[in-house]
C-alpha cells in the first residue's frame, strides 16, 4: 500500500507544484531572455526571437539573399559558389575585396570580357533597385554556409562592445581586426585605452564602484554612533528625536534634489564623488539609525554594565562591545545600502552627470528605434552581475534587514 500512499500524496499536491513552477518560470523567463540575447549577434537579435536558439539554426533557404543569389548568381557560379574555375564566392576573397555591397555593385557594373557581368537575368537599370539585389547577395556571401553548432551562435562580443561603448553596426573586435575599418572608428583598438572610453560600460562600472563603496561604509559608521547614543546614552528628548528621524525616512528623495544641487553648484561639488557620497549618506541615515538602534537596544544590558564595572567607558564599550555584537545588523544594512546605491539612477543622473554610472550609461545606450538590443542586453547584464552575486551570497542578511525595517527612499 505504501507506494500508492506516496503517489496519492504526490497527486494531491500536483496543482501546488504546477502553480509554483509556473510562477517561477514566469519570473525567470524575462531575465533569461535578456541573458540569452546578450550572447547573440546583432543580426540574429534584430531578425529572430531569442527562443529560436533552442530550435536549431536556420537552413540555407531562410537566409537573407538566398533568393537573389539563386536568381542572379547561381546560373554561372552554381549553388556552392565555385561554378567558375578559380573563383570561390564564399571563400572570403570576394568579400575582402568588396567589403560593402555598393562596392560589389560598382564592380558588377563593369563589363566582363566586353559583356555585362550579370546578363541572365540582367541587373535592373536604376542603381537603387540593383542595390536592393546586390546587398542581400553580399550579406548572403558573408553567411557561413556550414550549419552552426548550438554554441557556435553565441559570443561575448556584445559584452566587449558594451564595455568599450562601441555603437557601430559590426562589432568592436571585427572593426579592429580589419585594417581599413579601424581608420573609420574613434577607437585606438588598444583594449586598455578603449575600456576607459567615457561612453562605455567599463568606465561606468568603475564609476559605480567608486560611488557605491564609500556611500555604503559612510552611513553605517555614522549611524552606528548615533544608534549607540539612542540605545545606551541618556539625554533629554531622546525618544522625540528618534521618532523624528524615523519619520524622515518617508521624505522622498525628489524633495531635496534641487536645493542640494544649488548648494553643490555654489561649492563646486557638482559632478564630484564627494557630493554623491554625502547625498547617499544623508538618505541612508534614517533607515540605518533606525535599524541599528533597534538592534543595539535589544542587546542585554548586563553586557554593558559588566564592561563598565571592569573600567570601560562609553568609547571603549562602543568599539569593543557594541560594534562587534552588531555585526549581523551591519551586514544587513551594508548589503541593503550597497544594492540600493548600486541600482540608483536618479541621484547619479543629477549629481554625477559627467561621470555616468552603470544605470545612467545604460539609458545613454537606448536607441529609440530599438536597433541595438544586442548592446543593451549585454550592458544591462553587466550591471546585474555584482548585485546578483551580493544578493545570492548574502540573501539571508538582505531579508533580515528588510524584515527589520520599513520603507526606504
Amino acid at each position, binding site marked *: 500500500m505504501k507506494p500508492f500512499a506516496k503517489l496519492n500524496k504526490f497527486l494531491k499536491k500536483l496543482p501546488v507544484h504546477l502553480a509554483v513552477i509556473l510562477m517561477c518560470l514566469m519570473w525567470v523567463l524575462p531575465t533569461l531572455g535578456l541573458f540569452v540575447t546578450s550572447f547573440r549577434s546583432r543580426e540574429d537579435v534584430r531578425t529572430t526571437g531569442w527562443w529560436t536558439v533552442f530550435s536549431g539554426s536556420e537552413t540555407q533557404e531562410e537566409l537573407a539573399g538566398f533568393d537573389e543569389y539563386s536568381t542572379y548568381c547561381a546560373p554561372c557560379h552554381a549553388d556552392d559558389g565555385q561554378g567558375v574555375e578559380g573563383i570561390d564566392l564564399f571563400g572570403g576573397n570576394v568579400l575582402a575585396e568588396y567589403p560593402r555591397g555598393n562596392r560589389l555593385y560598382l564592380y558588377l557594373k563593369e563589363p566582363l570580357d566586353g559583356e555585362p557581368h550579370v546578363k541572365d537575368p540582367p541587373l535592373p537599370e536604376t542603381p537603387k533597385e540593383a542595390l536592393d539585389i546586390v546587398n542581400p547577395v553580399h550579406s548572403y556571401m558573408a553567411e557561413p554556409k556550414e550549419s552552426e553548432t548550438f554554441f557556435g551562435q553565441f559570443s561575448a562580443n556584445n559584452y566587449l562592445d558594451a564595455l568599450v561603448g562601441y555603437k557601430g553596426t559590426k562589432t568592436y573586435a571585427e572593426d579592429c581586426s580589419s585594417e581599413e575599418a579601424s581608420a573609420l572608428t574613434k577607437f585606438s583598438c588598444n583594449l586598455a585605452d578603449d575600456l576607459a572610453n567615457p561612453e562605455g560600460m567599463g568606465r561606468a562600472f568603475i564609476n559605480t564602484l567608486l560611488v557605491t563603496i564609500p556611500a555604503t561604509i559612510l552611513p553605517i559608521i555614522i549611524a552606528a554612533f548615533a544608534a549607540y547614543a539612542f540605545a545606551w546614552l541618556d539625554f533629554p528628548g531622546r525618544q522625540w528625536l528618534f521618532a523624528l528621524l524615523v519619520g524622515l525616512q518617508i521624505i522622498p528623495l525628489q524633495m531635496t534634489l*534641487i536645493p542640494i544641487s544649488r548648494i553643490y553648484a555654489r561649492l563646486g561639488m557638482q559632478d564630484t564623488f564627494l557630493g554623491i557620497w554625502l547625498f547617499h549618506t544623508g538618505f541612508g541615515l534614517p533607515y540605518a539609525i533606525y535599524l541599528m538602534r533597534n538592534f543595539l537596544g535589544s542587546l542585554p544590558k548586563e553586557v554593558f554594565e559588566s564592561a563598565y564595572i571592569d573600567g570601560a567607558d562609553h568609547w571603549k564599550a562602543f568599539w569593543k562591545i557594541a560594534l562587534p555584537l552588531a555585526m549581523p545588523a551591519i551586514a544587513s544594512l551594508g548589503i541593503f545600502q550597497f544594492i540600493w546605491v548600486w541600482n540608483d539612477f536618479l541621484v547619479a543622473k543629477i549629481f554625477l552627470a559627467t561621470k555616468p554610472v552603470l544605470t545612467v550609461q545604460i539609458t545613454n545606450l537606448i536607441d529609440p528605434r530599438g536597433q541595438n538590443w544586442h548592446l543593451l542586453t549585454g550592458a544591462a547584464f553587466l550591471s546585474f552581475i555584482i548585485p546578483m552575486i551580493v544578493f545570492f551570497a548574502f540573501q539571508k542578511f538582505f531579508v533580515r534587514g528588510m524584515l527589520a525595517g520599513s520603507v526606504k527612499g
Partner: protein
Amino acid sequence: MAPKIMKQGVWAPVMYLLPALIIMSIFVVFPMVNTVRLSFLDSKGQFSAATTCLEGQPCWGAFENYRYALTNPEMTTALKNNALWLLLMVPATVIMGLLIALLADKVKYEPIAKSLIFMPVAISFIGAGIIWRFIYSIQSGEGEQIGLINAILVAIGKEPVAWMSSPAVNNYALMVVGVWLWAGFCMTILSAALKSVPAEVLEAARVDGANEFQVFFRIMLPIVMPTVVVVTTTMVINVLKIFDIVFVMTGGNFGTEVIANRMFKLIVTDTGRSMAIAVLLVALTIPVMIFNVSRFRQQERSR
C-alpha cells in the same frame, strides 16, 4: 533604557549624534524647507510665482505653481495614473506576494522558488526596464516579432500590439513590470509572517474539518493582517514615488505620465513648478507617514 550606572558626560550624546545630525540637517531637513520655499517662486527661483500669471488666465497668486500641479492636463493625467497604480498595482502585488508565499510554503524546494521570485529586487529599475522593453517590443512591417509577448500573439494568430505606445494598454503593461519587481518583496515579508502562525492552531482547525480556504481566511489571514497592512503601506509609498520604470520604458509619453516623472522633467526648466509637484508628492505621502509613525509608537509601547 540605558543603564543608569554608566557614567556619561554632558557632551557624550552630542558627540555621538553630531555627525548624523549635521548630515541630516544639510541633506534632508534644510532642502525640504528650501523646496517648499522654491515652490512659491518662478521657474528660476527669483521672483514670486504670482509673476508668472498670464493676463486673462486663472491665477492662484503665490500658489500659481500649485495651480499648475493640480490642474495642468499633463499633471491630471499623472495624478490619474498614480491613482490607477495605487488601485490596481498595489493590491495585485500584495495578493501575488501572499499567494506565492502560501504556495511555496507547501513545497520542499521553497528556498529556490522564493529566491527566483525575490531576485528582481536585486536589479535596478533601469535594468528591469530594459528587460521588459525587450519583452514588449514590436516589429512593425514584415519582420519576425522579437518581443516575446508579440511573438506569442502572432503565433496564436492575433495582431501584435504596441504595448508601450498604445494608451489602451500601456499603463497596465507598466504595472505588470511593477508587480514583477515587487511581488518578491511582499512575498518575503509575508512569508515570514505566515511562518510565525503556530502550527498547532492550523492542525487543530484541520482536524476539526476546516478546508484549506477556511484555514486561510479564518485563521491565517487575521493573524498576518498587521503584516499585510505594513506591506501595503510600504507599497503605497513606493507607488506614489514610482519613477524609474516609467522613465526608462515610455518616458511618460503616450499617456503614461506619473507625478515623479513630471517633477523630473521640469527640474531644470522650471524649478518652481517642479518643486510644487515635489511638495504635492510629500503631501500625498504624509497620511501614510503619520500612519507609519503611530505604528512605530505602538511597537515601542509594547516593547
